[in-house]
């Protein structure tokens, strides 16, 4: 499953943030998304995940093929690690959580309520969720926050084996994960009123931004 994006404009609060984006994420590929804070990486990932509509353009991949790993892990404090994982697995129609548990070294924590986990352990559990979705395209927003060096390695291994199995990943991060990856800098796509625009972009903005005076 390939994720292709052409001439995509994403907006936050109705205002274009990034425009004219074009890239392809093929199976087996890792793409690192970089750019300063507030440059629209999260907005882009949410748009790709289908949580918000793009202002212009479209995303070629089916949202059913994509899983989104956000800042927040979506864990329930009163449920145990195992219950949390089993829940997400069954939502996605899977039942085997063993690879996820082993991949992120959670075996010893299974019975613990996730309220009692450390920040890094929570993050590992949040990342383990990716494996139980069974979806090929991962969109990850700062996945390594609060992970120690050993856990980062675990994560990098998980991405590597996911990619080796024909999956792909788009990762917004500021650190070097030691992965074989291409880099996509969002800086050049920053929305700018002075940039020459194509007609369809113009139409989409026209309702308020350009035409109103």
């Amino acid at each position: 499953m390939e994720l292709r994006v052409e001439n995509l404009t994403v907006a936050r609060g109705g205002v274009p943030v990034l425009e004219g984006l074009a890239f392809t994420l093929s199976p087996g590929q890792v793409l690192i998304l970089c750019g300063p804070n507030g440059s629209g990486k999260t907005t882009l990932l949410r748009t790709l995940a289908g949580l918000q509509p793009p202002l212009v353009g479209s995303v070629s991949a089916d949202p059913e093929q994509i899983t989104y790993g956000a800042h927040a892990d979506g864990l329930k404090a009163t449920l145990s690690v195992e219950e949390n994982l089993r829940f997400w697995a069954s939502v996605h129609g899977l039942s085997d959580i063993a690879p996820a548990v082993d991949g992120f070294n959670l075996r010893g924590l299974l019975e613990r309520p996730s309220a009692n986990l450390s920040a890094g352990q929570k993050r590992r559990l949040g990342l383990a969720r990716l494996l139980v979705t069974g979806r090929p395209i991962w969109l990850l927003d700062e996945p390594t926050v609060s992970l120690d060096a050993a856990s980062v390695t675990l994560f990098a291994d998980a991405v590597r084996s996911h990619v080796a199995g024909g999956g792909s990943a788009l990762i917004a991060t500021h650190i070097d994960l030691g992965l074989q990856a291409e880099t996509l800098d969002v800086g050049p796509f920053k929305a700018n009123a002075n940039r020459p625009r194509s007609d369809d972009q113009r139409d989409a903005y026209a309702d308020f931004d350009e035409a109103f005076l």
Partner: protein
Amino acid sequence: MIALLVRDLRLAMRAGGGFGLGLAFFLIVSTLVPFGVGPEAKILSRIAPGILWVGALLACLLSLDRIFQLDFEDGSLDLLATAPIPMEGIVTVKALAHWLVTGLPLTLAAPLLGMLMNLERPGHFWIFLTLLIGTPALSMIGAFGAALTVGLKRGGLLLSLLVLPLYIPTLIFGAEAATRGTAGLPASTPLLMMAGITAGSIALLPFAAAAALRVNLR
């Protein structure tokens, strides 16, 4: 969908508050009213169906903002939105979980609390029946209100304001059916009207609520 329902029920049981809160509030209302109105059995038994209905409605209102707010805050709602469950399904399951946690216990408790209010013999049955049919509508309408206000800070007060007028038809028909049934008058018209509202809410409001949720996640 079943996994989501099981999870929500489990959360409600573990977090406390869930089952207890609505019931406790209901108990408080029905014990306080006689102190306020006076102990005259005649008056109490006449107003009992109405008081029980208002009490159940307020108890229901109390826990509405939890329907989506917690999932929104910890990011689960984003993840659920990208999961292979349609948004309408999420809304329906959430409303069902809310009903199982508040509406159903209230329905079961109402006949017992009716005794405190000198509710007459057929009244126990009628209050049970009307609440059983009416409370699902309260949960569904409440889920719609919760979906509208999910992203807002201090959404609780706003939620009550939005949901209040939406509850009025259900309340009128429900309390009317209970009152008439208790008095031995024909009650099928208000009962059918209320059943209609419940059926309509369950059939249509998930779409409105899902639309509101999608907007709020944007």
